[in-house]
């Protein structure tokens, strides 16, 4: 059967398509890069002064605007192509934007701009004590390198930008480097990302197949497609945080300053998704097993990520694990899409990839929002420990309201944006099930795991929001919390607004993303998708109307009646106090207990004893099972081996000369021995 959407295998020589009209379209992109590099330099020179913060923030906002324009035009179909001379081995500075690049460029610019604004005041109290300039320089470099990554059209350029991205984000994570756990996190991150890149090197070399490393000419050798796909899964999956490779993510994201966590979690890990999509474009028609592989990885990451998130007690760590979950969801969408492509089911393909791309955008929005809000909480209370917070909604209404929106959105509830993308994936899965055949099982996996994930995510975020923002404060610092200044409130509220807007205007977003999807899934089923989403947004609007109407009724009914205030009804208990509230740990306990086998949660329980028990406590801890059960032992094994070998270097000269003698004898005998 003819597969949708795939151009035939590219020719080895760059195709002689007429150069797209560049002039003004490239201009914004060049402006973006120029602003960023100039800003980085300026910030670096300003050093510890507070002005560095202002420069960095302004630069990132301006660049964000440029990026939105440039990406938007490319998404709208005004592609451009730019080649500059660059003399490095095998490399050329060749950037171009097609709708896919444009889409990611938009997402990146949006979030980086807003987080830049947030960071301005967020870092202010470090002025004079830390080198703000360096931090902002790396922030802008991160922005720039991401922009290059999604537009690069030469493998070497791509890899350089890729590594620059990792490096700048690493140095950003290291901002508060006196804390030992930060250094550990940085180390883990560096190791993971660097080892991941090794796979990418091999992947690109296999794709190049001895030829040039320009994307136009990349195409796998016969039969190498599967290998390339697997390498891409590992290489890009490390950055994206696919399941067995996610271990760096929950370490690094909490360690960074919050606006950086937002960028890393919101968009940087998405570059892994971009890389995967780009590779799929280069690879040509996919066999079914790629789809199933992605589905498997996605389901595992999603379920495992949300479970681990549920077991966390630290707000930012919880959010970090949710990034793993959402990456899993995106992978599910891509898997559905790939199955659709391979089984020739256009609707399924379109739904899957639209869902994946929209979720990339949506996750960027609400995860950015959540991390920034968490940053405000940290800023106000100096702790991210759930069980020391509480009652913040009264004290920081703006942040709390935004966080609520974000929580509902990330749990995929209507009428917010999270539901739109998940709905697309569900619908794709459902269409596969309705269509039957082998792909249907993919649909089953997707639907089942999505259902489980969303249920658990709901549990997790009712916990996060409920414990942090509702009830009574559990510590003095929470008691004294207050909303941050405007420049920190604004981005959060803008993002919250975006969550609602994207939820109501799902079809418009889908229509906008359609060109990007068309490259992979073919544009044929796009109208159907948009039409489907109109139903969703219609329902969302209706829901809003209903709520408004009911609220009105309630107001009407209560008018003129006594509305009193009192303590919470605690079933007759005389003196309810803040310490009697349910805590995060107790809230999550039933589910965590249920999955203890996979989570490896440890519990330190001190039972109350005697007639008048003094103190009793229960403390649970859930580390990362893979890190603790798989990676640490592996590293330890290598270290053990190395330790066994150290006697070779005993310090005895005689021994060393013996090595030389043996080497020469062995080689001589091996090469010449016996042969007459």
């Amino acid at each position, binding site marked *: 059967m003819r597969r949708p959407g795939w151009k035939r295998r590219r020719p080895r020589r760059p195709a002689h398509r007429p150069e797209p009209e560049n002039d003004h379209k490239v201009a914004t992109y060049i402006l973006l890069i120029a602003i960023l590099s100039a800003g980085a330099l300026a910030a670096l020179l300003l050093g510890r002064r507070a002005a560095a913060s202002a420069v960095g923030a302004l630069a990132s906002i301006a660049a964000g605007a440029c990026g939105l324009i440039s990406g938007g035009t490319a998404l709208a179909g005004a592609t451009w192509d730019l080649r500059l001379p660059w003399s490095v081995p095998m490399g050329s500075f060749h950037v171009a934007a097609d709708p896919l690049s444009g889409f990611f460029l938009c997402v990146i610019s949006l979030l980086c701009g807003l987080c830049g604004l947030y960071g301005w005041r967020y870092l202010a109290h470090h002025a004079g004590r830390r080198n703000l300039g360096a931090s902002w320089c790396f922030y802008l470099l991160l922005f720039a390198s991401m922009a290059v990554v999604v537009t690069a059209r030469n493998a070497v350029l791509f890899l350089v930008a890729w590594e620059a991205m990792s490096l700048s984000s690493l140095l950003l994570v290291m901002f508060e480097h006196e804390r030992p756990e930060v250094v550990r996190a940085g180390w883990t991150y560096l190791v993971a990302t660097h080892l991941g890149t090794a796979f990418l090197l091999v992947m690109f070399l296999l794709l190049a197949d001895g030829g040039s490393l320009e994307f136009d000419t990349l195409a796998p050798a016969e039969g190498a497609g599967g290998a390339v796909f697997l390498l891409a899964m590992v290489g890009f999956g490390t950055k994206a945080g696919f399941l067995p490779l996610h271990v760096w993510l929950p370490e690094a994201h909490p360690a960074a300053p919050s606006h950086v966590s937002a960028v890393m979690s919101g968009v940087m890990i998405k570059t892994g998704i971009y890389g995967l999509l780009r590779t799929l474009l280069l690879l040509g028609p996919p066999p079914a097993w790629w789809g199933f592989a992605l589905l498997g990885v996605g389901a595992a990451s999603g379920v495992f990520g949300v479970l681990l998130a549920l077991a966390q007690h630290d707000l930012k760590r919880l959010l970090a694990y949710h990034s793993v979950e959402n990456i899993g969801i995106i992978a599910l969408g891509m898997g559905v899409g790939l199955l659709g492509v391979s089984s020739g089911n256009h609707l399924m393909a379109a739904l899957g990839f639209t869902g994946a791309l929209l979720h990339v955008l949506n996750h960027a929005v609400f995860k950015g929002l959540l991390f920034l809000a968490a940053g405000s909480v940290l800023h106000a209370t100096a702790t991210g420990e759930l069980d020391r917070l509480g009652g913040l909604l009264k004290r920081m209404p703006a942040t709390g309201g935004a966080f609520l929106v974000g929580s509902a959105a990330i749990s995929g509830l209507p009428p917010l944006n999270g539901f739109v993308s998940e709905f697309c994936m569900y619908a794709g899965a459902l269409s596969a099930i309705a269509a039957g055949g082998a792909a249907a099982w993919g649909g089953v996996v997707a639907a089942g795991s999505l259902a489980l994930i969303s249920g658990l995510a709901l549990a997790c975020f009712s916990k996060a929001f409920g414990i942090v923002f509702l009830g009574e404060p559990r510590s003095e610092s929470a008691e004294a919390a207050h909303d941050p200044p405007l420049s920190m409130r604004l981005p959060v509220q803008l993002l919250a607004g975006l969550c609602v807007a994207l939820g109501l205007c799902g079809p418009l977003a889908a229509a906008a993303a359609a060109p990007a999807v068309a490259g992979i899934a073919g544009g044929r089923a796009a109208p159907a998708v948009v039409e489907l989403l109109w139903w969703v947004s219609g329902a969302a609007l209706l829901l809003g109307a209903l709520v408004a109407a009911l609220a009105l009724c309630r107001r009407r009914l209560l008018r003129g009646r006594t509305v009193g205030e009192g303590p919470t009804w605690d079933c007759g208990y005389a003196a309810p106090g803040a310490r009697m509230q349910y805590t995060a740990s107790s809230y999550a306990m039933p589910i965590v207990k249920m999955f203890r086998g996979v989570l490896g949660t440890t519990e330190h329980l001190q039972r109350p004893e005697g007639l008048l028990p003094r103190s009793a406590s229960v403390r649970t801890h859930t580390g990362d099972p893979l890190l603790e059960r798989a990676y640490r032992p592996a590293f330890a094994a290598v270290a053990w081996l190395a330790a066994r070998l150290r006697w070779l270097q005993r310090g005895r000269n005689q021994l060393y000369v013996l090595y030389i003698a043996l*080497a020469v004898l062995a080689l001589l005998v091996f090469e010449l021995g016996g042969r007459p």
Partner: protein
Amino acid sequence: MIWAILFVPALCGCLCPVIRPSWPRRALLLAAAALQAALVGSCWVRRPADTAAGWLGLDAAGLLFLSLTTALFLVTAVYAVGYFRQEAGAKRRDWEEGFLFTNRPEAMFTACLLWFLAAMSLVSVSRHLGLLWAAVEATTLASAPLIYFHRHHRSLEAAWKYLLICSVGIALAMLGNFFLAVAGSAASEDGLRLTLDSLLESAAGLDPTWFKAAFILCLVGYGTKMGLAPMHTWLPDAHSEAPSIVSALLSGALLNCAFLALLRLHAVSCAAALGDFSGSLLMLLGLLSMVLAALFLIHQSDFKRMLAYSSVENMGILALGVGSGGVAVFGSLFHAVNHSLVKAMLFLAAGNILAACHTKSSAEVRGLLRSHPVTAALWLAGLLAVIGMPPFGAFFSELVVLRGIVGAGRYALAAVYLAALGVTFVAMARIVLPMVFGKGQAGDEGGRVPIRTAVPEPLWAILPPLALCLAAVAVGLHLPAWLNAVLQSAAAQAGGQP
């Protein structure tokens, strides 16, 4: 021109011992280095013709390594002047064991430095294998006293091991030369001359058996000097005990000289259609070096020894690249450039750290970023450069080598190569990151407070490594055409295709 390149450092070296006051001597050192640099620079403009009946000449590879050597020497000379000022004075206390020791007389040290330079220059300009051999041995003899600059038992031990092991190895190389002569005696009735030109033209007539034996002997011999496993054993001791400038020169320049010798022989064997044989041997030793070095890096507690093992690993990359042929040869030559720049810079930075923290154990150095920002930044940059992160050149060279390997379809080899690189990188990051970051306070994880002198980081200690760092970045960001041309032609000589 070539004679000048040889004689300027040699004569200045002979002058040094007779100059009593120290300032003129230091000035002489700088002047000699600068003059040498100028001479070599002029060679880039106009390549001098071969002289002495084709015994001396400057081909692409020679020019490349000669320039590297000279550049490093110039930079280290600047560093050395400051270093001498710091090291001057009668008795010094050893930081590790606390006994008192004296340094060797500075005059002798300076002289040896210059002779060392002369010997290395001779290595890179000699186009006659016998002469090459003599020059390489000369480098050993000139550098042994350098290692024994601090007069105490550890440095003496290091010098002794260096001397003995390298001499033994080099002796084998001598035998190799004789075998080569015998192999050629069939080619031309009056025995053949060991000049490269005659070897290359009469390569076809070489007796394969004798040639193979000769190559093996030379490989082991020069490999000892180059630090290929399992003959690398002298390297960590020498590098850890020598003064940092000497370590920088040893690692950045000397190893290249030995590599150059192997390159010449590989070229001959390629001409004799034995390229596969020699290539496979080079790959074998290269891979062995990479793996061993990676494993020895894991438990490394001494940051100078760490750098030494990383040199072993990089030499492995060079051998691997040359062995696997194709584009990889270009890659490994380019990698030689990057490695020299970066490693020299790292050793100079290590010298600063040593001077600041008075310890070589990495566990006792913490939070450099707060006490010595520039050095810390250099140290970190050096780490990133040596593990092959862009924008440093090492990324590209390692990529090209990998491409050569993958292009030849040696996937298992590629896997081991990447695995070794990975382990190296993990181990080094594990050592370096805690040194740079973290609190500098005593107490927290045993960090020793870096000693703040009045001027924490004197200019002479900062500028040389900084210059090298910038050079490494520049090569990575933009490979100049002239350098590219030389690399390409040198690679072509050693049997690589572009």
